[in-house]
């Protein structure tokens, strides 16, 4: 999808005034946060698991080449194919080639954020293929012709009413209004597609180096049907998703569902190893893995390696008060919220997503719930540092910082400035606060400015106590 992160501000304001969006977001936010907190509280070793997961991820990232090579060998031994894609274009070309070779007409897809990242659907549709998203949320936004607004709950911004409308228009009614009926209707429609599919494309929550397996977790079982019923199964995954062993994967599984949806475990956890064997009753004839770099090896080498620990649970956005206020679409690309505000500038360019690292209060709630302890606020600040160094920040901001530094490193001048400011504000303020203040409208448009008491603390202290 085309990046629209430059429109962050206007899209954020639009979202704040979108009553349906606010209704949907409020409901989701309260649900996710409460359930995660309950799960974390009920598992005594939860905090220890977070630390263990962080350390294991760090070990994997330090030895990523080793584990990826082991993984590739194991996939081949199981009869599968591994493809390496340096960027989105290469990834698209690889997948398109496979689909064309098997003359694919219908392609089913389990949820895959990497496929969103590489604009896969558009490329397949352009070549005349029918692409069907099978995750209920993805299916809803495909009908609405919208990108996902959340990495695990792509249609979290939609209300039930809006889904009823979409289904009625797409499926020809009668209009359903109960959640169970809506889910059932989608199931009926999708079941047909699974049987017709030539290619099934899924993501990979974890890639197991020791066995060459891909592991996916879903709550709907749609991933299983996608990957076992089609003739060809293609896994799209970032290179950072490899883990050494199945045991290691279980460590992350214990954290993933609890952090993401506040479940003890997902409904379906499915492991795929290679294509169908002679003795298997079902399964694909071909098994492919497309390992996508798309900026990841650059992150591995620099300041942002910590970001590669991400297991895509979405806890950071569930707990982010900015995301909760504006929703995922405001962020303008595939990954929203705190993790997206780090990834988007790194993958799509610092200048294409200036606002994302800045539209954050650095309140730290994201980092406090991250299952692999990514220091998201520090990474966002580091991105601001790069933007400052590359002079991507507004000229006025850089000038203001220069002036601030000049004055603040001269205590006498600084204190005189504070003294003058306090006097002026005191004159302007009546009844304790100021309602309109030129040059500070961004403050006074929203709230009053409390009037200073009259003198600065330092003045009064020195007057009372000497030095």
């Amino acid at each position, binding site marked *: 999808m085309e990046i629209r992160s430059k429109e962050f*501000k206007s899209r*954020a*304001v639009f979202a*704040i005034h979108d009553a349906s969006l606010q209704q949907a977001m409020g409901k989701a936010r309260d649900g996710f946060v409460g359930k995660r907190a309950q799960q974390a509280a009920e598992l005594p070793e939860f905090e220890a698991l977070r630390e263990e997961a962080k350390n294991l991820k760090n070990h994997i990232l330090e030895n990523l080449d080793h584990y990826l090579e082991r993984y590739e060998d194991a996939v081949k031994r199981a009869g599968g194919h591994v493809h390496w894609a340096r960027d989105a274009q290469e990834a698209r070309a690889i997948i398109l080639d496979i689909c064309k070779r098997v003359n694919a007409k219908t392609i089913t897809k389990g949820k895959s954020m990497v496929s969103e990242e590489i604009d896969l659907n558009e490329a397949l549709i352009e070549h005349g293929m029918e692409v069907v998203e099978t995750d209920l949320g993805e299916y809803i936004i495909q009908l609405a012709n919208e990108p996902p607004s959340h990495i695990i709950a792509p249609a979290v911004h939609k209300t039930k009413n809006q889904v009823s409308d979409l289904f009625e228009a797409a499926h020809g009614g009668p209009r359903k209004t109960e959640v169970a009926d809506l889910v059932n209707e989608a199931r009926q429609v999708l079941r047909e597609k699974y049987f017709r599919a030539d290619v099934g494309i899924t993501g990979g929550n974890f890639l197991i180096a020791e066995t060459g397996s891909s592991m996916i977790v879903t709550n709907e079982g749609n991933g299983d049907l996608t990957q076992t019923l089609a003739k060809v199964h293609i896994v799209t995954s970032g290179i950072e998703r490899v883990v050494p062993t199945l045991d290691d994967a279980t460590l992350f599984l214990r954290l993933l569902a609890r952090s993401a949806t506040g479940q003890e475990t997902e409904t379906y956890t499915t492991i795929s190893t290679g294509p169908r064997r002679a003795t298997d009753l079902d399964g694909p004839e071909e098994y492919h893995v497309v390992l996508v770099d798309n900026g990841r090896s650059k992150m591995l080498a620099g300041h942002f390696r910590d970001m590669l620990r991400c297991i895509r649970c979405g806890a950071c956005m569930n707990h982010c*008060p*900015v995301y909760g*206020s*504006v929703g995922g679409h405001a962020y303008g690309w595939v990954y929203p919220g705190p993790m997206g505000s780090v990834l988007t500038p790194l993958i799509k360019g610092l200048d294409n997503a200036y606002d994302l690292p*800045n*539209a*954050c*209060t*650095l*309140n*730290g*709630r994201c980092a*406090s719930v991250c299952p692999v302890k990514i220091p998201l606020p520090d990474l966002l*600040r580091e*991105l601001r*540092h*790069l*933007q*400052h*160094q590359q002079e991507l*920040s507004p000229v006025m*901001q*850089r000038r203001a*910082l220069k002036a*601030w530094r000049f004055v*603040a*490193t001269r*205590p006498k001048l600084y*204190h005189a400035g*504070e003294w003058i*400011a*306090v006097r002026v504000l005191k004159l302007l303020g*009546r*009844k*304790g*606060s100021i309602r309109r203040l030129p040059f*500070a409208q*961004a*403050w006074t*448009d*929203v*709230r*009053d*400015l*409390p009037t*200073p*008491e009259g*003198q*600065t*603390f*330092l003045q*009064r*202290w*020195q007057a009372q*106590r000497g*030095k």
Partner: protein
Amino acid sequence: MTQSTGKRPRVGLFATCLMNMFRPNVGFAAAKLLEDAGCIVEVPDTQTCCGQPGYNSGDFDSARALARQVIAAFEQYDYVVGPSGSCMATIRHDYPVMFEDDPDWLPRAKALAAKSFELLSFLHDELGATPAGTRHLATATYHDSCSGLRGLGIKGQPRELLAGVAGLKLKEMQDAEVCCGFGGTFCVKYPEISEKMVEDKIHNIIESGADTVLGGDLGCLMNIAGRLRRIQSPVRVFHTAEVLAGMANGPGIGGHSQESR
């Protein structure tokens, strides 16, 4: 340089920018609490700002310039204490990171970080102080400021200290730990998002039924008070130090003299 008199620790009071300009009463309340707990309080006039605005804007060079100034001004003291989780988290956590590659300043930054504390946690955890004899008739709700809460682990300390204030009832609000939308320059760079966040916050404050909001950071408190004034809410806002020191008799933050009790 340190000249401790007997066992009384010499504390350098960090006069945060917002306190210095907008609410000197908080500084005097802090000084009183520290002195009552047996400290000698001094306020070096070579201090200005901790450097956080530069640091969080990505101007690390300017932040370091300010940090060097703070280190020089305060390293003579036994402790550095400030009435703000935000500024003190900058000194405690960020200074050592800022000077990671500077062998001259790193030890000085680390030494200062180790003896720098936010006021309420310092009173409670380091001094074991239990301010007594103060009275404040109010039903208050406590806003946990993010830097203090997640950066410095301040959660129970202010509540326990406030439990000793006669006449004060604490009533927790929903989402007390969620950001109020201040975020330093965030509130003026993204005013609409900030407005949504502070609106959520004051909704929870009003829902709690409290007549007073307390907290430990003037940035958040000015944001909350400013919004409460804008909608003409009678809820009053004080820094916790003011209540603990018995110096919350005047108008609340953003309030005026007619409302004082």
